[in-house]
C-alpha cells in the first residue's frame, strides 16, 4: 500500500466516515436561531444537508444528513465534534483556517492545536480534486450560520 494513500485515508478519517457524528439530521429544538444549508458537489454527486442552532452567539446544536465519499462524510463528522459550543466568530475563523490548509497544496501545515482532529485532513491538500469533498460540510456550516444570522 502506498504511504501516500495512508496519509490521505488516515485511520481517524476512516473511523469518522463510518461513525458519522452528528448524523442523521435532527429537528431544531426551538431554542435560539436555526440555519440550514444543502450543498452538492456536481462532480461526484456528494451532498449534505446541515442544520445548525445558534444560542447566545454560540453553536448549540448541529446535525446533518449526507451521502458521499469517506473524505466528505468524515470531514462533516469531525466538524460536528469540533464546533459544538464554540462562539460563532470562532467557527467562521476555523472554517477559514481549514480552507486555507486544504487549498495550500501541502504548503501550509495543519495546526492540531487549532484544528484538532480536522488536522488529519491536511493530506487532502495534495489532491486538489478532493478539496471540495473535504470542504462540503464546512461550506454547509458556513452557509447555515449565514442563514441563522439573518
Amino acid at each position, binding site marked *: 500500500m*502506498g504511504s501516500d*494513500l495512508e496519509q490521505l*485515508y488516515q485511520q481517524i478519517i476512516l473511523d469518522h466516515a463510518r461513525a458519522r457524528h452528528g448524523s442523521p439530521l435532527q429537528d431544531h429544538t426551538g431554542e435560539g436561531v436555526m440555519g440550514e444549508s444543502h450543498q452538492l458537489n456536481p462532480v*461526484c*454527486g*456528494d*451532498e449534505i444537508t446541515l442544520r445548525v442552532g445558534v444560542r447566545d452567539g454560540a453553536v448549540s446544536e448541529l446535525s446533518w444528513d449526507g451521502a458521499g*465519499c*469517506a473524505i466528505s462524510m468524515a470531514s462533516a463528522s469531525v466538524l460536528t465534534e469540533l464546533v459544538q459550543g464554540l462562539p460563532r466568530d470562532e467557527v467562521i475563523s476555523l472554517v477559514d483556517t481549514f480552507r486555507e490548509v486544504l487549498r495550500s497544496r501541502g504548503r501550509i501545515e495543519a495546526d492540531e492545536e487549532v484544528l484538532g482532529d480536522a488536522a488529519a485532513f491536511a493530506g487532502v491538500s495534495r*489532491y486538489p480534486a478532493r478539496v471540495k469533498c473535504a470542504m462540503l460540510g464546512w461550506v454547509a456550516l458556513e452557509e447555515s450560520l449565514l442563514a441563522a444570522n439573518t
Partner: protein
Amino acid sequence: MTVVATPVTLTPTPGAAMTDAEVHRIRNDFPILGTEVNGTPLVYLDSGATSQNPLSVLEAEQEFYEQRNAAVHRGAHALAVDATDAYEDARAAVAGFIGARTDELVWTSNATEGINLVAYAMSNAALGRGGEAARRFSIGPGENIVVTEMEHHANLIPWQELAARTGAELRFIPIDDDGALRLERAADVIDHGTRMVAFSHASNVLGSIAPVTELVGLAQAAGALTLLDACQSVPHLPVDVKALDVDFLVFSGHKMLGPTGIGALYGRRELLNAMPPFLTGGSMITTVTMERAEYLPAPNRFEAGTQRISQAIALGAAANYLHETGMERIEDWEMRLGERLVTGLDAIAGVRVLGPAAGLPRIGLAAFDVDGVHAHDVGQFLDDKGIAVRVGHHCAQPLHRRLGLTATTRASTYLYTTTHEVDTFLEAVAQIRAFFGAR
C-alpha cells in the same frame, strides 16, 4: 501534394484475432502509455472518457502546422489549396470510416455540438426558417421527442431545451431494474406525434448496445426522425450509417484516438440540405445582402466561421489508424476485455456491476458499485496504484438515480488495453473493501 497521414501500425494478417503481443506493438505507437504514475506503470482504463493518441495523429496535426497552415475554402495561394485538400481528405476518410458520403459529414466540436445543431435546426424550422422544405424538422405543441432513460446528458438536455422552446413534450423509453431498455414500452412511447427519436448506440455506463433496428423501425413507422449518439460505438465497433438506417449520427474525435475539439455529425444528404442552419456567419453562404443570405448546401452550410482544420486532419489520421487495425478485430478484442472485466468484478464480494450480465453483449467497459465504499474513494485507491478510471455519474444522473445510485466507478478499455492491465485492475479492486473497512 498529398496529405493524408500514413498509419504506422504493424498490420497483422487481416481477420486474425488481436492478441496481447499485437496490443504491445500497438502501445508503442502511443507515447503516453509509457507514463509512470506514483512509481508504477500507468494503467489507463478511462478511454470511454477520452482516448489516447497514436503518433500518426500527433504528427498529422504537427505536420499541418509546419507545412500547410492556412485557412480553408478561401484564398488562392498554394498553402490555402494544400490546407483545403488536407481538410477535405480528412472528411472523406472519416465519412468513409462510417459508411457515409463525404458531403454527409459535418464537422462539429464534439458530439454534444452535433446534437445541439440538430435540436436548434429543428426549433429554427419550428419558427418557419428554411421554408416549406424544412417543415419536416418543425416541432411544436402536441408533438414529442423520444429519448431513453439511460442517455448521457448530452443526448438529453438539448432535447429538454428543444421541448421547452417549442412547447413539445419530451418522453423517454424506460429501463428496468438491471438497466435494460424496456423495448416493449417503446411502441407506446413512440406515436404519431413523435418527431424525433434520439438514443445512444452503446451506453457509456452500462456498456449495452441498443436495439437500433427495432427503434429505427418504430420511429420510421411513426414518421419520426432518428438520431444515434454513437460516441461509444464509432470508436469501438464497425459502424455503417446506411446499414443502421438512421437519419443523424454523432460522435466525438477525442474518444477515437483523435484530438479534442473535433467531432462529426452525419446526416442523410437530403435532410441536411433541407435543414435550416444552426450557427451562421462566414463560409456557409452563397449570396449575402444587408437584408438576407442564401446558404451553401451541406456540409458547408453547417460550418460557419473558420473551422478546426488541424483537428479535422488529425481525426482523419485517427480514422485511418483504426481502419488499418480493423474495426471488427478491435470490437472482438474489446468485447473479450469487457467480458473479462465483468466476470472478474462479479467474482469480488460486495461488487455490483451495472448493465448486461456476463456472457451478454457488452462493449469493453464496466461500471460498478463497491458496497460500503464511495466511487470517489474507489477511484482514489486505484489512482494510488497508477490505475486511471472514471468516477461519478458519468454524465448520466437519471440513469444512476433509476438504479438507486449516485456515483459509480467505470473502467473502460480500448485497442491498446492489455489483459494484464485488466487483471491488475481486478486485483486492486479486490483489496478495496478491506482497505476502507467496509462491512
